[in-house]
């Protein structure tokens, strides 16, 4: 007997985690995912160092070259999928597919290298994908106020800016909740 998956498959909701290279996307996904984040990682070679801008990211030794993703089962019917977008410019071609059907995006920012998230902001603004900016406060250090970040990014008033710790489950949960609430406001 053939089974009909339409009766059994949950509904998949997709959220993107974007931001510059080494900003903590993989960490963020891992903090809330119920499965180990599935990913393809590649050791940074000398060639890679020339391509990837690692200024100010001294401790990062590997770079995610494909996508990583995590899963959160909301209830029996809904499953939330988090997709980390490739942080390097040479993988832009993967973005269109990832963004297709996405509910919204978290743009993770590091205030030491704020300009790194500009391409992500441009991308989601052009596509009209709802997004928020989450400032990853490494080691609990908040270097700049939310308002200062907002001004520096030249964001309109609609897209929220929040502070977070990408390693902390509760903090990441709050970021995702803020994003979904923002999506509801945008659509209302």
């Amino acid at each position: 007997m053939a089974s009909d998956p339409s009766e059994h498959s949950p509904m998949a909701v997709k959220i993107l985690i974007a931001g510059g290279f080494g900003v903590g996307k993989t960490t963020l996904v891992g903090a809330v995912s119920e499965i180990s984040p599935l990913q393809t990682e590649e050791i940074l070679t000398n060639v890679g160092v020339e391509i990837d801008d690692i200024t100010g990211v001294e401790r990062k030794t590997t770079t995610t070259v494909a996508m990583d993703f995590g899963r959160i089962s909301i209830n029996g019917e809904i499953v939330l999928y988090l997709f980390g977008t490739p942080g390097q410019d040479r993988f832009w071609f993967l973005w269109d597919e990832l963004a297709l059907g996405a509910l919204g995006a978290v743009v993770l920012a590091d205030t030491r290298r704020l300009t790194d998230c500009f391409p992500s902001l441009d991308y989601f603004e052009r596509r009209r994908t709802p997004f928020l900016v989450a400032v990853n406060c490494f080691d609990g250090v908040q270097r700049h106020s939310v308002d200062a970040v907002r001004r520096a990014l030249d964001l309109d008033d609609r897209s929220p800016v929040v502070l977070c710790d990408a390693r902390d489950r509760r903090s990441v949960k709050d970021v995702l909740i803020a994003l979904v609430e923002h999506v509801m406001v945008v659509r209302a």
Partner: protein
Amino acid sequence: MTRDEHDWLDAEAGPVVRPYAVTRGRTNARTGGWAGGWGKATPIDLVAFVQAVDDTSTGMFLLPEHQAILDRAKTPVTVAELAGHLDLAVGVVRVLLDDLLQQRLISINEPDGAGRPDERVLKAVINGLRSL
């Protein structure tokens, strides 16, 4: 050359088999895999659910990777998760899924109303996240 010729093939070099070797070089999923060409057909979505169909009668020669997909898909599983668990590129998985689809060994449930879950769903997501 000396036998040092392949010294670069160490553990860090990763697999040296080309990703599409497993599909015998086919990069083209007939039902519109990612590698099937830009804009040709919609590729099977990353979060489409794959489920094995309860039908063992097939004349098809199954690769171990086909079998692995069928094993994983006894309960619905997404394309992205299949690729992750099988450690294969998504494009490769799509070709393999296409094979299985042609043989009616799987069914694929594409996401509904892509990206536009209604308010009820959004509220459920928020409540679900809060209670994590």
